């Protein structure tokens, strides 16, 4: 009952004209960002973040969340029409979606993806609304050791799961912690890693790093080759996008399964929308009576992964809002946004700022309805927008990055840092080092350092306090397993295999 009252209050905030307008703007921009190959949701959120600083926090969050889940819808468009996934979570959609397009069923694929995303998005918001306060309630009892362990787990999972190699992910996280350590130490007031550069006295800001690593680096990558959306034809009419009863019947099981599976995957730190869509595709293929149809244009191969990636993006809000620990690159940027708005992410957010949390949750219901309408009725418009923006895209994004960072700090030094981190991000991308751990470590680094110091201060057993409290022990053990589990598994497997081979 209390949840429903809070939700109603949230709706009262979400339906104000300004919030509706920015929710719509977020959904439109998110759909475009998701549709454009080369620009993912973390880049979209990072680039648009500085333009939300003049808004009330709830309005800014509504818009940025709209960009995030809008991108999940948008990723389908180029996957189906061009066989080019707009972002990584749409890779699985491309397999059967593009086949359906080749069979003249592109409209149905896009339509069922939109309906599946809507159902999953709504299921995700209901689960977020139900689970969020419960997790927050449990986390209120956490002390500094548990918080430190939680942050270590967040860093370990994102380092372990976001790249091709755990070691490279850890290397990225260490680089992020180093960046976070730059500047004046809050306890002693001594400047660390400053090397006489006056501008580094306040440390390396989050925004230039996030915009550089996610936004500018993508521009650098894209500018080397010319985008070509000329082959995308905007001939799909809205009637073709409306799924028939037969299509809905064939896809509904996959949509429901994808919704729950996606949410559960999204809640896990580090897993995210891409992993959720892979799981869903594998599950649907396993459960199908005709697995041979997968890869040949199976509607379940589009509906399941699309539902899963959308639900996962909503699930990712659970650890972010309740624990203050993000599980993906985009939520790491959103965590930075919360801090820059002056909010303290964590369990107290639900009780201290209910208007913001419930306003955001209510806006997600509205955003999902907006996106359903947009993705059924305005597909040709999005295709036209993609084709029109093609030539100006890179320069427009670069300008937004520069203006955004400058507007926030009125400092050319920060703009320089953005370009520098853009180049570092470009090299990391080419070397297959994930960028998300750097951003997450930059945000969590000072908080983890603070929590560790507080833990050691209150402890009479030194660092053993982290291992003698059950919750922190479990969290640290989980972090250890995330990082070393695959290595141990490999070692055990090779040990068992070698005697047989011998």
């Amino acid at each position: 009952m209390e949840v429903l009252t809070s939700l109603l209050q949230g709706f009262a905030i979400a339906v104000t004209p300004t919030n509706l307008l920015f929710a719509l703007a977020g959904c439109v921009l998110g759909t475009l960002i998701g549709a454009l190959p080369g620009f993912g949701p973390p880049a979209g959120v990072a680039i648009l973040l500085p333009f939300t600083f003049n808004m009330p926090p709830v309005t800014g969050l509504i818009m940025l969340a709209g960009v995030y889940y809008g991108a999940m819808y948008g990723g389908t468009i180029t996957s189906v029409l061009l066989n080019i996934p707009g972002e990584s979570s749409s890779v699985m959609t491309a397999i059967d979606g593009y086949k359906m397009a080749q069979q003249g069923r592109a409209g149905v694929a896009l339509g069922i993806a939109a309906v599946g995303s809507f159902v999953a998005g709504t299921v995700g918001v209901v689960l977020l609304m139900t689970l969020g306060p419960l997790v927050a309630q449990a986390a209120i009892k956490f002390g500094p050791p548990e918080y430190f362990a939680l942050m270590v787990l967040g860093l370990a999972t994102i380092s372990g799961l976001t790249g091709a190699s755990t070691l490279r992910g850890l290397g990225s996280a260490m680089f992020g912690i180093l960046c976070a350590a730059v500047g004046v130490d809050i306890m002693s007031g001594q400047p660390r890693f400053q090397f006489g550069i006056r501008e580094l006295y306040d440390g390396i800001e989050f925004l230039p790093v996030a915009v550089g690593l996610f936004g500018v680096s993508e521009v650098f990558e894209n500018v080397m080759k010319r985008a070509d959306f000329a082959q995308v034809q905007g001939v799909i009419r809205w009637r073709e996008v409306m799924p028939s009863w037969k299509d809905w019947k064939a896809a509904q099981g996959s949509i429901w399964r994808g919704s729950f599976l996606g949410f559960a995957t999204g809640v896990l730190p580090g897993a995210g929308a891409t992993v959720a869509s892979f799981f869903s595709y594998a599950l649907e293929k396993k459960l199908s009576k005709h697995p041979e149809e997968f890869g040949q244009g199976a509607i379940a191969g589009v509906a399941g992964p699309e539902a899963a990636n959308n639900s996962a993006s909503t699930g990712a809000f659970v650890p972010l809002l309740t624990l203050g620990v993000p599980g993906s690159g985009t939520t790491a940027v959103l965590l930075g946004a919360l801090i820059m708005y002056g909010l303290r992410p964590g369990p107290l957010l639900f009780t201290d700022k209910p208007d913001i949390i419930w306003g955001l949750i209510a806006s997600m219901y509205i955003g999902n309805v907006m996106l359903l309408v947009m993705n059924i009725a305005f597909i040709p418009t999005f295709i036209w927008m993609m084709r029109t923006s093609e030539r100006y895209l890179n320069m427009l994004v670069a300008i937004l990055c520069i203006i955004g960072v400058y507007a926030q700090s009125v400092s050319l030094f920060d703009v320089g840092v953005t370009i520098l981190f853009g180049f570092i991000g470009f090299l990391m991308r080419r070397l297959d080092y994930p960028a998300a751990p750097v951003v997450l470590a930059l945000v969590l680094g000072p908080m983890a350092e603070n929590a560790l110091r507080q833990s050691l201060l209150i402890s009479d057993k030194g660092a053993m306090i982290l291992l003698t409290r059950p919750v922190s022990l479990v969290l640290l053990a989980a972090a250890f397993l995330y990082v070393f589990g695959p290595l141990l598994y490999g070692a055990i497997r090779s040990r068992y295999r070698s005697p047989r081979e011998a």
Partner: protein
Amino acid sequence: MEAERPSERAASNHSYRKAHFYAALIQVLLAALSIAESFRFSYWDEMLGPGAGFVPRWLGIFWLPIASALLWQSRRAMPPEEGHTVMPEGRERRRLGLFILILTGLMLGFVPLGAIISVAAFVAISLKLFEEYTWRHAALTGTVMSGLLYLLFRTWLNVPLPRGILFFL
């Protein structure tokens, strides 16, 4: 031709491994720097607990073995796809280099020239060099785009953009 392909692949693999080697080496150096920097500060304070040197020292201690393992792994690093190079080559390198140059120009001109002029110049030069617009068309598009962006950010979003030489605006 057939004989050239394996040698090209070997050269590409070699340059990829070299790039990974340098990336790991930089991390080894940064980890060492972190440890060295930590000795400039107190490690532990009787009153405050962990000092300013505490985190840098442990960061270096954790990072050093990770970076060393990456250094070791770099000997076997394989590109994700054939022909993948870390640093772009030929036309791609020229395009990237030019873009970074123009972007740096935008940054340097942003305050003294003002947002309108620097953004217009950035768009016009980019369109001319990357999209092969005529100078006239590029300048016109740049001016219109810059004006619209200025209006959007300055008047609607209240973003404090520098006016530069157009201070009277």
